[in-house]
């Protein structure tokens, strides 16, 4: 919601140019022990939470030295604007000797999931929305939506089409790749973070890929499929940090249709669009569905990440069914 209510405000877009703006995932920063995490904790612990430990979500302004200039956690653009203006005043008044990064400072993280970015693979951006109850795509889309990134390695990307991609051939997407979509991406996180599905909770995940045309090295594909994931309640993914404090029965069922073009010479997808429409039900701790756990329509759109798209790991990268993902030594 901060995307819409705060950072889409023209006044904040304008004032941001007087800073170096950066974003990051806070769960690692607030818990980790590497130099980057400790640098964050030193100034964040002095911020709006006024204590050590616990969440550190929010907005912080600091000098490169680590001196905190302002912090807060609000969805109110006026308050954020005021905070940033005050921070700029403090920055102006800060002596030069207290501004800069100490010589020899090392902020290299011990591990980042983005280091496993699948170069040359299939990298998608997804958009997730509630759908209009009357099923009319011409209706105005709701304001609540979320996004994620989907990663397939170069080897996995090639598995989306048959070994010999002749027109008319139909190929079933390998089970592990279909499961990745059903477990980690066709999930109800439209309004907030949610939980993944265990493999055994995916009752169906079938995607058929048909070669519709081949022109030299370019193979045009049509994708059709259906998924059905249902968690009856008991947590089935072991003692990991996603484990919820109670049971959350929930499910998502979808039908998928898409088009893609793969370049055999370059070994990459040059076009990829996949729509999934379906129903969700139930709720989880943080996905803001407690008041409407009853079934409602949900939609997803997957497309190629555009050139220049930042390398952001998928939400569930730490439990991804991908042996090429490098995991941290600490087990985080």
């Amino acid at each position, binding site marked *: 919601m901060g995307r819409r209510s705060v950072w*889409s405000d023209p006044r904040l877009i304008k004032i941001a140019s007087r800073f170096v703006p*950066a974003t990051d*995932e806070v769960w690692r920063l607030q818990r980790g022990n590497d130099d980057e995490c400790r640098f964050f904790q030193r100034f964040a612990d002095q911020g709006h939470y006024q204590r050590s430990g616990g969440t550190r979500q929010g907005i912080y302004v600091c000098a490169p030295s680590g001196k905190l200039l302002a912090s807060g956690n609000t969805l109110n653009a006026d308050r954020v604007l005021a905070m940033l203006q005050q921070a700029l005043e403090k920055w102006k008044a800060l002596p030069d000797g207290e501004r800069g990064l100490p010589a020899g400072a090392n902020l290299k993280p011990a591990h980042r999931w*983005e280091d496993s970015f699948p170069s040359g693979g299939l990298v998608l951006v997804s958009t997730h929305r509630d759908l209009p109850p009357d099923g009319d795509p011409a209706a105005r889309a709701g304001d609540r939506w979320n996004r994620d990134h989907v990663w397939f390695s170069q080897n996995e990307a090639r598995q989306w089409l048959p070994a010999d991609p002749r027109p008319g051939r139909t190929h079933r997407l390998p089970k592990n790749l279909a499961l990745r979509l059903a477990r980690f991406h066709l999930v109800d996180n439209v309004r907030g973070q949610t939980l993944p599905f265990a493999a055994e909770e995916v009752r169906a995940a079938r995607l058929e890929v048909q070669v519709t045309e081949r022109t030299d090295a370019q193979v045009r594909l049509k994708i059709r499929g259906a998924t059905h994931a249902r968690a009856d309640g008991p947590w089935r993914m072991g003692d990991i940090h996603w484990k919820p404090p109670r049971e959350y029965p929930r499910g998502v069922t979808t039908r998928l249709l898409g088009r893609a073009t793969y370049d055999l010479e370059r070994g990459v997808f040059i076009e990829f669009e996949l*729509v999934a429409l379906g129903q969700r039900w139930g709720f989880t701790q943080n996905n803001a569905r407690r008041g409407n756990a009853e079934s409602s329509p949900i939609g997803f759109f997957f497309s190629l990440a555009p050139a220049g798209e930042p390398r952001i790991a998928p939400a569930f990268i730490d439990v991804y069914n991908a042996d090429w993902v490098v995991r941290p030594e600490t087990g985080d």
Partner: protein
Amino acid sequence: MLSTFVRAATRSLRFPAAGILAAALLVAASAQESSRRESAHASTAAPAPGRFELDDGNFAAWRAHLQPRPAELAWLRIPWLTTLGDGIVRADAQTKPLLLWVMNGHPLGCT
């Protein structure tokens, strides 16, 4: 269960104090039954497919519906760096303060 409470509440209307209690019980029973229904529904099989057919004829319309509108991506006009470390290093190089936005889930991804 609910009908039992309805009958009890009706009989109690002749006695105001008891009627108030019966009404409260009626509300509580309704809420309890609604909660049971919610739990039961959440644990049953998937709801029947609705009216959301997806085919070649409406693919473009659903794609347009689902894609973010330009106004919904205004926040990306800010040139966000993707890590704290990158932000601090660049802020030092440019002699500017760092503006850091952090959330559970990366703000440029799923939050």
